[in-house]
């Protein structure tokens, strides 16, 4: 496959066994990728192969299997580092998911570096996973949590960011791509502004790393978190990227086996990076599977993935925009990733999702773990269609037909 060429979703679909199944007698149109993606055969095979032929615990045994398993696990780390252009593999920590990665920073970095009267800046479009850990930290240490507002068009209000940066700011934690609005935030710009006032910057990349090329060095961020299951990888796999010099200074998060160097009766010293932050037996096979997912995505090409999703988003916004009673939230296609949330007059999103399911179309309904954003938008819930490399315009036509059906059926 040529990394530069346009991707062919029909050809790629053949790589994903689940996409050939039927739901309620209809071909599955899986449009819930922002919640979790599906996996290609190569990832499923990598898990299978690892368990069949190479599995043992890592970094412990001197026997052959343990050495093979350790090599596979560490090779996966190198693949992840290359995928996000991390300059140093020591900054790539395996976690269960983005949520755990952010909590790691909130506990290990936050409780040492944020104190009474300090300010933590987040945004109104955060997923709960990049909001609740900071709420807890702020409450615990007596810090202030300040929230950058979102404009009516679904963009971050950068003037409000600048105002909030005038103060004792220790951290700016923000989402790269909104899981509701789809907004692609100017991450590089936000990180630069945070650094200007001496604050650290954490990027929640759960919706960006799976969908577009991401270069942590170019972003300049101090921390970045993402989940494997949203990028064709296994559940229970995720990554925290951190600048090694910051990770070095941080105390450990979870403690126990694997993360120690030496343990005495009353005291212990810590292992080197990255293992200092990987306590206990990690999700070994899942990390290996995530490595296979990264191989798959790299072969397709992240530029091609982004371009394909842009095409789908443009088409979806055009078709939904023409439907009576349908209201899309968020910015125009050129400013967003493949996420389209919307409401339909007099139809609750749950009912809409149920009717769509009957047509084989899988979408999410609810607040998508972003309640403050829904409050800001004056909405209780939305329906959300989110795309990936294997989705087609034909599936979007089925989404539109399903919405019409729900309007006929339920709309009064």
């Amino acid at each position, binding site marked *: 496959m040529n990394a530069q060429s346009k991707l062919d979703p029909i050809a790629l679909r053949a790589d994903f066994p689940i996409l050939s199944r039927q739901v309620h007698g209809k071909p599955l149109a899986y449009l819930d990728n922002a919640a979790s993606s599906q996996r290609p055969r190569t990832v499923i095979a990598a898990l299978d192969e690892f368990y069949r032929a190479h599995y043992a615990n890592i970094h412990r045994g001197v026997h052959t299997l343990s050495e093979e398993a350790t090599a596979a696990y560490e090779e996966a780390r190198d693949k992840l580092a290359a995928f996000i252009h991390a300059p140093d593999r020591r900054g790539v920590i395996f976690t269960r998911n983005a949520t755990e990665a952010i909590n790691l920073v909130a506990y290990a970095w936050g409780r040492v570096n944020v104190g009474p009267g300090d300010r933590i800046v987040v945004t109104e479009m955060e997923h709960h996973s990049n909001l609740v850990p900071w709420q807890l930290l702020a409450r615990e240490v007596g810090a202030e949590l300040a929230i950058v507002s979102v404009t009516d068009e679904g963009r971050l209000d950068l003037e409000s960011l600048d105002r909030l940066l005038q103060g004792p700011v220790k951290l700016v934690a923000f989402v790269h791509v909104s899981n509701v609005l789809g907004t692609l935030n100017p991450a590089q710009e936000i990180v630069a502004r945070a650094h200007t006032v001496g604050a650290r910057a954490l990027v929640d990349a759960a919706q960006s790393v799976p969908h577009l090329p991401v270069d942590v060095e170019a972003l300049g961020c101090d921390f970045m978190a993402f989940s494997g299951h949203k990028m064709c990888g296994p559940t229970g796999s995720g990554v925290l990227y951190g600048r090694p010099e910051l990770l070095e200074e941080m105390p450990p998060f979870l403690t126990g086996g694997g993360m120690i160097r030496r343990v005495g009766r009353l005291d212990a010293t810590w292992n080197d990076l990255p293992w200092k932050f990987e306590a206990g037996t990690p999700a070994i096979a899942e990390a290996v599977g995530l490595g296979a997912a990264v191989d798959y995505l790299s072969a397709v090409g992240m530029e091609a993935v982004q371009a394909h999703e842009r095409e789908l988003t443009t088409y979806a916004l055009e078709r939904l925009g023409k439907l009576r009673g349908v209201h899309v939230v968020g910015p125009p296609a050129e400013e967003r990733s493949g996420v389209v949330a919307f409401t339909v007059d007099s139809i*609750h*999103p*749950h*009912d809409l999702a149920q009717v769509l399911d009957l047509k084989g179309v899988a979408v999410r309904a609810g*607040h998508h773990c972003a309640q403050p954003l829904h409050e800001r938008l004056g909405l*209780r*819930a939305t329906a959300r269609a989110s795309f990936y490399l294997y989705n087609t315009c034909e599936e979007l036509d089925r989404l539109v037909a399903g919405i019409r059906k729900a309007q006929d059926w339920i709309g009064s």
Partner: protein
Amino acid sequence: MIPGDQVTQLYREHILDHYRHPRNQGTLDDADISSEMDNPVCGDLVRLDVRLKDGRVSEARFSGHGCVISMASASMLTEEILGKTVEELEALQDEDVFDMMGITLRPVRAKCGLLPLRVLQEGLIKLDKK
């Protein structure tokens, strides 16, 4: 796996009728049982006001917002409980709601359908404490 016709069943005419033309919508002043609860996952909210006369439900009203299933269930429940004693209300089970609606609900949608009953049950606990 649940066959398609069972999902179609969810939106059967009598359910849609209760959704489009809700019975007993509103609130009651000085209700004997009054309670409100939401389902944070989908934002549904149901309030129930019940007036008792001679130990039996004489009037019931519901208000709130939500999906077809939660609103139809609330509307039906206000009819279902008329004339019942407090003991009979306390004896109501999840199965009674499914029977009342005449449908089976998968776990996620069961939360929608059972929300009005949960509101009633909370109201009854408060009544006990009065």
